[in-house]
Each structure stands twice: as C-alpha cells, then as structure tokens.
C-alpha cells in the first residue's frame, strides 16, 4: 500500500511541480530585496508561457521559445519597473494591473494570431537531458530505478533552476552587487549616498524577476504541457509569493519552500490512489498544499521579516 505512494515518481513529481514555483519565487526574492513588491509574478509567468509557445510555433525550436519567454517576461516587467520606480506608483496597484494586462493580452493575441481562444496547437517540447540504460537485475536495478527517476529523469529547466537558486544565493551574500541589492530594500538612502543609483539597482532587480518568471512560464508550456491555454498558470505566481516569504527572502530558501509545496501537491495526487483504503473525499487531499501554506506561514517558521523599505517608492534628493 505504501509502495503505491512512496515511489521514485513521487519525488520526481515534487521536483517538477516545484520548478515553476521556485523560478518565480526567486524572481520575487530578488525584486523584493531591492525594495519593489512584485505581485505581478502570476501575470509575467503567463506572458512568458504564451510568448514562449508562440515562438516555438513560429520557429519550431524550443530553445528559441525559452529565450522568447524570458524576453517577454523582461518586457512586461519593465512596465512594472517604470511605474513603481520612476513614477513612484503604488506597487501593488501596478502589479495587479499587470496581472490583468497579461490575461487580456495573451487572450487577445491568441484570437489575433491563431484565430481561436482557448488552447494553442501543441508544440515541440524540451525532452529530458539524460537517458541512461538500467544496469543488470536485482538490487542494483532497483536502486538505479530510484536514482534515475529522482535525479536523471528531468528536463533542462529543472536543473537550471537549481543552479539559479545556488548562484543567486551566492551573488546575494557574497558579491558587492548583492550587498547593494539588499541595502536597496533596507535603506535606499544609504545606497544613494555612497553613489550607487537606486533607480538603476531596482530596475535591474525587477527586470531579472521578469526574466525568471518568464522562464517559469517556459517551463510550464515548453517542458511540461506542450501547449498554451488561457490563464494556465492557475495562481502559481501567488503561491510563489508565499514561497518567497516562507523562504525568508532568500533564493535557496525560496527554492526549498517551493520544493515543499511541490512535494505536498505530488503527495496529494499519490494519496488519491489510496481512496479505497483511506475513505475521505478527495477534496481533503486537494486541500493539502494550501493547508500547508497556511500552517507554515502562520506559525511554524516564526516571524518572517520583510525588507524594511519594501513597497516604498524612493524619491531622490
């Protein structure tokens, strides 16, 4: 019975489902550390998902699609950067507007380019990188099934995400750029007085979060499903925001938090298999990831302290 649930695919599935969350969450971390709230992650992810798909449909090359998704993410996040950094608009309002904009633009362009709403035609997807053959029988083969399933069965962006998490963590705490970034979110005036541009620093952070959320969209369409559907992100951008807080505004923390949410989601799918044994309605299983979110945010992790200057527009002079 437990053998039905605890399988290599449970952990592989957790990694797969964590990837889009983690990319967006790390993007959110960079952005909020610089002092700009980014609730537009959902919309940016959707934009990336759409333009990624469109680029693959046009060129047939999935990697060009990944690039297009990131570019689209950068482009739409530039609106957020301009509104919240230069115009000093309310960052939550600007983010909400981008979420609405993304939903509208993707639906509109879909009508315009493909002549129908709903779902696009299917595209060429990125395949898993590795494909090793299993060694002989017995214990070795069983062990190999686990290692191969959990470690080697993934598509490129899943691995890239882990690298990004580690590199971002290193950059944030071990480089001058990282020091400036963190200072931007805590005390922008101090950064300004040492001669570093607050505007430029925040612009770079917002655009980077756009690229990462766009990459998250590419993971959904170009690696996981192979087509774009309107509003297909399904609230992942908002769960990513929670993961960013749960990860205490650090890249690796965001990744691990996303992994926990991904694991909860993977586990609930496997638990549904046991519906004949555990006779509770499936809604209870479906609730699991969200209950987990509430629990961890409410108490287990203690007080999560946001950057001091997050959400506050900076006025030079």
């Amino acid at each position, binding site marked *: 019975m437990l053998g039905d649930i605890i399988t290599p695919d449970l952990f592989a599935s957790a990694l797969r489902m964590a990837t889009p969350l983690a990319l967006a969450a790390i993007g959110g971390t960079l952005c909020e550390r610089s002092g700009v709230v980014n609730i537009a992650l959902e919309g940016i992810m959707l934009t990336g998902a759409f333009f990624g798909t469109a680029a693959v449909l046009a060129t047939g090359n999935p990697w060009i699609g990944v690039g297009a998704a990131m570019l689209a993410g950068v482009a739409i996040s530039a609106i957020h950067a301009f509104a919240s950094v230069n115009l000093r608009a309310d960052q939550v309002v600007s983010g909400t507007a981008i979420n609405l904009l993304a939903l509208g633009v993707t639906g509109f362009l879909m009508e315009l380019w493909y002549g129908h*709403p709903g779902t696009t035609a299917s595209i060429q997807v990125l395949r898993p990188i590795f494909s090793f053959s299993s060694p002989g029988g017995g214990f070795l083969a069983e062990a190999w099934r686990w290692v191969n399933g959990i470690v080697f069965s993934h598509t490129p962006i899943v691995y890239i995400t882990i690298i990004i998490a580690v590199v971002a963590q290193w950059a944030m705490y071990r480089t001058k750029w990282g020091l400036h970034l963190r200072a931007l979110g805590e005390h922008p005036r101090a950064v300004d007085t040492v001669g570093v541009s607050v505007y430029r620093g925040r612009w770079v952070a917002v655009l980077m979060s756009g690229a990462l959320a766009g990459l998250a969209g590419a993971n959904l369409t170009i690696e996981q499903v192979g087509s774009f559907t309107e509003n297909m992100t399904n609230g992942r951008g908002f769960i990513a925001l929670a993961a960013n807080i749960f990860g205490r505004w650090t890249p690796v923390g965001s990744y691990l938090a996303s992994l926990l949410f991904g694991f909860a989601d993977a586990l609930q799918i496997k638990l*549904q298999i046991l519906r004949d044994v555990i006779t509770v309605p499936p809604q209870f299983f479906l609730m699991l990831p969200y209950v987990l979110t509430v629990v961890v945010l409410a108490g287990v992790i203690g007080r999560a302290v946001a950057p001091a200057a997050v959400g506050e527009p900076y006025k030079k002079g």
Partner: protein
Amino acid sequence: MNSKMSKLVAVLLALMLVVAFLPACAQEEPAEEPAEEPVTEEPVEPVLKTAMVTDVGGLGDKSFNDLAYEGLKKAEADLNVEIQVLESKEITDYESNIDQLASAGYSPIFAVGFLMTDAVAKMAPEYPDTQFGGVDEFFEEVPPNVVGLLFKEQEGSYLAGVVAGLATLDTFDDKLNGDNVIGFVGGMDIPLIKKFEVGFTAGAKAVNPDVKVIALYAGNFTDQAKGKELGLSLIEQKADVIYAAAGAVGSGTIQACQERGALFIGVDADQYLTVPGSGDVMLTSMMKRVDVAVYDTIKAVIDGSFPGGELQVFGLAEGGVDLAPYHDFEDKVPQAIKDAVEKARADIIAGTIVVPES
C-alpha cells in the same frame, strides 16, 4: 510634477484595463463573421435572435462551450436565425450577461454550464417573455420559460468503460501493458463529473470484473500541468487506458500518455478532431452532444413546441451521448471490442442495462 506623474500613472493603468478587456470584445467577432454569409445569400429577415452565455471556460474550451456554439452555428446556417455569444470571464458575469441579452430581445438564450443554474433561476422570472435553455442545469422547480437540458453522461461513459476494460486485456497496440489497470482523470469531484466516473467504472467492470480502476481528481478544469502529473501517476500505477472528464486538464493528460505510452479516451467533443496531433493515443471519445440539444431547442422554439418548465434528458437513445469513431485505431481495435460496445449500446437503449449515476 507630482500630480503630473500620478495623472500619467492613472492614464497608464486605465489603458491597461482597456487592453485587458479587449478579448471580450474580440471574441464577439466569430459570432458576427459567419452571420454575413447567410445574409448575402438570402436576404431574409432572421426568424429569431438566439444567443448563448458561456461558462468561465469560454469559447475555445474544446468542450461544452464550443459544442453549444456549434449548435448555434448550425441553427444559423439551417434555420436562418441570428446568433450572438457573450463570454463570462467571472462567475459574477453570468447575471449581467443574461440581462444584457434578454433586454436586447434575444430568445431563446442558452446558459451553458451547471454553475449558471442559480443565475438562470433568478433572471428567468424577470424576463417572462424570454425563453431560456440551461445546459447541464438541474432545477428543483423549472421556471415556465426555462428548459433544463441534461445528459446521461453515465451511459456514454459506460461505453467508454467497455472499450477501456477490454482494451487493457488486449494487445492490439504496443502501449497496452499486461496489467489489468485503467485510469480516470476528473476535473472537480462534483456530482456531474462523478456520473462520468461511475459510468466508466460500471462499463469496465461489466466486461472485465477484475479490472482495477484508479480515479484521480485535479480540483479544477484548467490546470493542464496538474493534468499531466495525474496522467504520469496513473501510468506509474500501470494504467494503460485513461479516460479524462476534466476540460482543459485533459490536454495535459494526453501529453503524459504520449510521453510515457498509454491510450487516452477523450470527452465531450470528438477530441481526435479538436486536439490536433493526439491521434497516436486517442482511442475514442465520449461525445456529449450539447450541439444537438441546443439545435433541437432552437428548432422547437421556431415550431412553437418549446418545452418550457421541463427537464429534458439526452441519453444514448436520444443521441445525446455516444462514442466517437476510433479514427487511427479503427483497424487495430478487434471486432470483439466493437461488438461488445454495440451490444452494450443496444442493451442500454432497450433498458436491459441501467447505468448507475452515483
């Protein structure tokens, strides 16, 4: 300077909102385009103006909204009626959409989807002269100007279960494994979707009593990535035929079937036609003929035989549900399976098999 800036922001945001609502306008186009043809061919005044309000899935769902629209388009072509579509983006759009169409003189108005039941029940008395068709809507007391259009999804699903139950024992395709397991993917665990699951299981068990049917639910009808994960989990459990009644979630399941090698049974429309490139796994589809129900209702209104105040149930016997052709599997599927499906169909129509719905 400051007020100038905030004005600019306000203008920018207003622009964004306008763009955000563009699709709502754009999507009315398909309703108008085809309207031009019949007018140029035969410049006769339309017999009546009919319209539909979509569910939040909207046009392009390759499911019941699109099918209802098919019914409207057929009526437009055959019966010389004027048609209109309003899409609901939020549940809160239902009433205002119905209101807008009713006050513009459209009748009958089709409200597509069980979520709209309450909106129809509320708006129908306000427009007593307008006729309403409620697709998938069950009313305890049907208002006199409303007809509830319901389907016996369990009957069509039973046939899908017969195909799946026998196919998993067979070896006509290399995606079929030796294990006696089949899978079901549902959108939300609600009575409507339960009918699909129960009928499917009953059909499979009738021809293959030992078969293990694993049913997984996504919790929504839109998350394709979740649909893929559910499919992968089913395939890991050795399921080799998967039936999905889950809207767009099913497209993700098709992807899982294509990657890991399993057969798929589509739902609502003939998904071989609506999901291009799925032919290598699409064994058949359980069609729910919303288009037939909508078309017949428009015809009834024209004939003056509108069944107001009634619930109409479309089953196998009425042609409301059925299996789609096997398409690419036509030559592979053994005659024994085709015969078993025909026998089950005849027995259900004759009433010797009564398919449970819960």
